[in-house]
């Protein structure tokens, strides 16, 4: 078992990090891989929503998250962080955007900073899988399903009724317990209150 590196401290990412990095096929080897990712991260910070091949998108997402978390943790007065931002953002005006726009935007968030969605796929096509990578809080219209929770859908109506019954039964039981206790204190009887089996919901047993 290897010792963890203690020379550096990093914030925890809010996304799932796979154990192994993905190889992005490149003629220049590991250096070319980083170059590719630099371009993607720069594009993401610039346009806030981009469409990519899935493997590159998944990999670039981790680097973008790390970059933003480093910027939030150390701020713009920290020399190594500035170096990192300078290396990763190919267009230098984006460094200002990172520290002045993105850091205030994500400073108090409890979730991850980016979103990765699967792009629609042409069936039986031979194209690679596409994903859409975006920064949260971007000005574009929302992607994905935007279904409103409808109270009048049949499952919601049924569940409302079940909830009412369940709560009533629960309160009744509570009341009974309290009464029993009082009786116990009064008469010092040693009868254990019978535990009623809780009514299970139809919906639950089905699903």
């Amino acid at each position: 078992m290897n010792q963890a590196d203690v020379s550096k401290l990093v914030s925890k990412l809010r996304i799932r990090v796979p154990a192994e990095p993905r190889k992005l096929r490149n003629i220049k080897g590991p250096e070319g891989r980083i170059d590719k990712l630099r371009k993607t991260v720069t594009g993401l910070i610039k346009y806030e929503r981009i469409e990519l091949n899935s493997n590159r998108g998944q990999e670039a997402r981790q680097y973008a998250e790390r970059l933003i978390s480093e910027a939030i943790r150390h701020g713009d007065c920290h020399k190594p962080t500035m170096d990192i931002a300078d290396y990763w953002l190919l267009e230098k005006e984006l460094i200002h955007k990172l520290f002045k726009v993105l850091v205030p935007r994500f400073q108090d968030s409890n979730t991850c900073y980016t979103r990765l969605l699967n792009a629609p796929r042409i069936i039986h096509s031979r194209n690679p899988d596409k994903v859409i990578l975006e920064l949260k809080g971007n000005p574009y219209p929302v992607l994905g399903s935007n279904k409103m929770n409808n109270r009048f859908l049949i499952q919601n109506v049924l569940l409302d009724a079940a909830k009412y019954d369940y709560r009533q039964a629960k309160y009744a039981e509570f009341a009974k317990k309290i009464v029993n206790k009082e009786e116990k204190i009064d008469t010092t009887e040693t009868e254990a209150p019978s535990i009623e089996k809780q009514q299970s919901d139809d919906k639950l047993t089905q699903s």
Partner: protein
Amino acid sequence: MDNLKVLCSKLIKLRVDHIVTRSAKFTVKYRPPHWYAPKVNVVKDDDLTQDNMQFIKEVISDRNDSQQELESPLVQSISHTSQQWLPTTRRVGLIARKIGNYPVWSNNGKKMQTTLLQVVDNHVIKYIPPEEFKPMLTTERNWREKRKLGCMLVGSETINPSTVTKDYCGLFNSVGMLPKRHLRRFMVSPEAALPTGTPLFATHFRVGDYIDIRAKTIDRGFQGVMKRWGFKGMPASHGVTKTHRRPGNIGSGGEKARVWPGTKMPGHMGNRWRIIRGVKILRVNTKYNVLWTLGVAIPGETGAMCYLFDTVLPLRKLKSSPPFPTYFPSDDLPVEYYDECVHPFSDPTLTFEET
């Protein structure tokens, strides 16, 4: 038109004949056991309101709590079932999770590598006596009459009922339990039967006992002969071209001019059930239900599930009566049990006496 009719009738006959010939050869090879139910996650796409989601969570947590409060049914039944353990009886086993390995030191200063197995929330789900137990079809003819062992279903790790299918959930509902993530059968002697809902603990086994462990090995994918079978390969140089990691010859000529069955060749490696027999238990933690077993050869990666039962090796079989039919839950247990060969970390430094 007539021609067409004739053709059609011929074709129909052809098809029927075809099916008849197929069905004559067709035999039932595998039928899943009757307690097996598919356990695929239900796709959750009902547009529930926030309030109703909360309600479902509340119901689940309530039911979970009520299950936690249930006490072991052994408390009532143990008094009148005073069955004796014999060397021929088979007890129920446990479902455990492999959580890693680390060294412990023995009393003579030797380092031993151990594997940690955590027994997570094990409950007896059901016992099927041998008369009622009708397992899947097999090629053996008189197998069913010989069978004298009952089937005990044990589940581990309670899960959210809304994440499993109705069939799978019903299996547990019929006995009044919440569904478990892992369900496993153990063949037990009728006298070792346990009532539904009995919790099983790591103390089911004692320190110093030997157990067999069945688990799935690490999936390594398609591998060549050097990794899969340990072949030597061929030299890297000395005029060798294009055949450094290849198997070489796979058969001879003459009458045996074919590839013999069982020849070691490249193929899928790992992800198959394997049993490691006669593993010694060195240490037991009763608080977290963890077993320390000797060696690192327990199949599967960290986090894999494994099934533990008493060993069948003749020389390592249980000598004295273990907790039978299982460990009877009681308070005031020591947190740790150590085998006599293990040096506990809380003991003072080892010293050797001059001889």
